[in-house]
């Protein structure tokens, strides 16, 4: 249990997708002008990460890893398909995103309109593929840990985008030097937030 809490807190604060690894920056910069749309996209990302990371964990352990195919028969025991992982992971992600798109369209047409092109673009949001690749790299012990990691990373991303959206709503009324307006100041504020989040680094759970 403690291990799970540890992974959860770590993936939100210490290994935050945005501030520690810069993943999902494109949609983070593009959809963070208003808090309401940022919340919508954040929730969609949480959902997609929570579903795809465990799915890809199963793929990784029963299909891709060296020796993972042993369950079919001893002849397959030393097959190593790990070079296929990019393609299979991205296929899982693309189909999950399709699913989310249909769900959002059905249950919240307003949000669907607000997110527009960025909903299908979750498929190419690096935070999602990054979640699966980190899962692969860090060798989580079981599927619960992988799920908690996916969920935590999603929450971390959600926090980041909602925070920057709030700051950007305020910053519209500030006197920013003209060449820094818009993109430039967002980069710098994100950098400063990253410095803030680094203070979590020393925490041992």
């Amino acid at each position, binding site marked *: 249990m403690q291990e799970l809490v540890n992974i959860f807190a770590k993936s939100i604060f210490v290994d935050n997708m945005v501030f520690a*690894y810069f993943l999902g920056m494109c949609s983070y910069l593009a959809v963070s002008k208003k808090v309401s749309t940022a919340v919508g996209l954040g929730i969609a990302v949480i959902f997609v990460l929570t579903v795809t990371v465990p799915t890809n964990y199963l793929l990784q352990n029963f299909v891709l890893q060296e020796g993972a195919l042993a369950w079919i028969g001893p002849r397959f025991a030393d097959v190593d398909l790990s070079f296929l992982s990019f393609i299979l992971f991205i296929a899982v992600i693309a189909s999950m995103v399709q699913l989310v798109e249909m769900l959002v369209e059905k249950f919240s047409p307003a949000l669907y309109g607000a997110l527009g092109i960025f909903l299908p*673009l979750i498929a190419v949001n690096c935070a999602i593929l990054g979640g699966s690749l*980190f899962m692969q*790299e860090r060798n989580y012990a079981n599927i619960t840990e992988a799920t908690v990691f996916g969920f935590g990373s999603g929450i971390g991303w959600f926090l980041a985008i909602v925070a920057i959206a709030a700051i950007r709503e305020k910053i519209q009324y500030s006197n920013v030097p003209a060449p820094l307006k818009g993109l430039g100041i967002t*980069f710098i504020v994100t950098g400063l937030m990253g410095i803030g989040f*680094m203070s979590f680094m020393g925490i041992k759970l």
Partner: protein
Amino acid sequence: MAEVLEKDVQKEELIDKVPKEPLFSKKNRKLLSDPFNDDNPITVQVLGICSALAITVKLQPAIVMTLSVIFVMAAGNVIISLLRNFVPNRIRIIVQLVVVASLVVLVDQVLKAFVYDVSKELAVFVGLIITNCIIMGRLEAFALGNTPWRSFLDGIGNAWGYGIILIVVAFFRELFGSGQLMGFQIIPESWYLANGGFYSDNGFMLLPPMALITVGIIIWVQRSRNTKLIED
């Protein structure tokens, strides 16, 4: 393969443009030069930021990443451009992802075979080229509507415009963060405090947030010089 490609290019050009346009006409040269400044993928189009920042602690991985992206983007653009009349609109995203993913698998395996150390340093970020929005963005915006030769130039131009930012950021971070470039000591040892000098490395430059701030400053400099890019 090259022969087939060349034939296609010529055929396309004969169909699309009469009289025939020279390969490096003014319009085509613009495709190469625009992404440097007016239309830079990172600072203007806001694409492909993630990988741009994560691997810029040192110069060498940044250069390897640039070369990989140039390859994936040029090849991806040409392939999608050749396929553009056969792919149904509804499944184009999946087709693009598959093409890009296969090219990235190729790059990943080549890097693992020839420059294992660098590929270890790049870690998951080679895989993340698949989801690099520059590639998807250019495939969507350009390759789907243009001839292979023009798409090729567009791919090279944009990947290089992306790479130049990567290299500039990596240059400053490595120089100020560890006093080295490509692993060679640039700032003389005798300058360091430990050896009786006045200088010490700014370790902060090696931490992730400084990459963001460095890009922010690059944007600042670029937009002060090129005022038509200023947002209101």
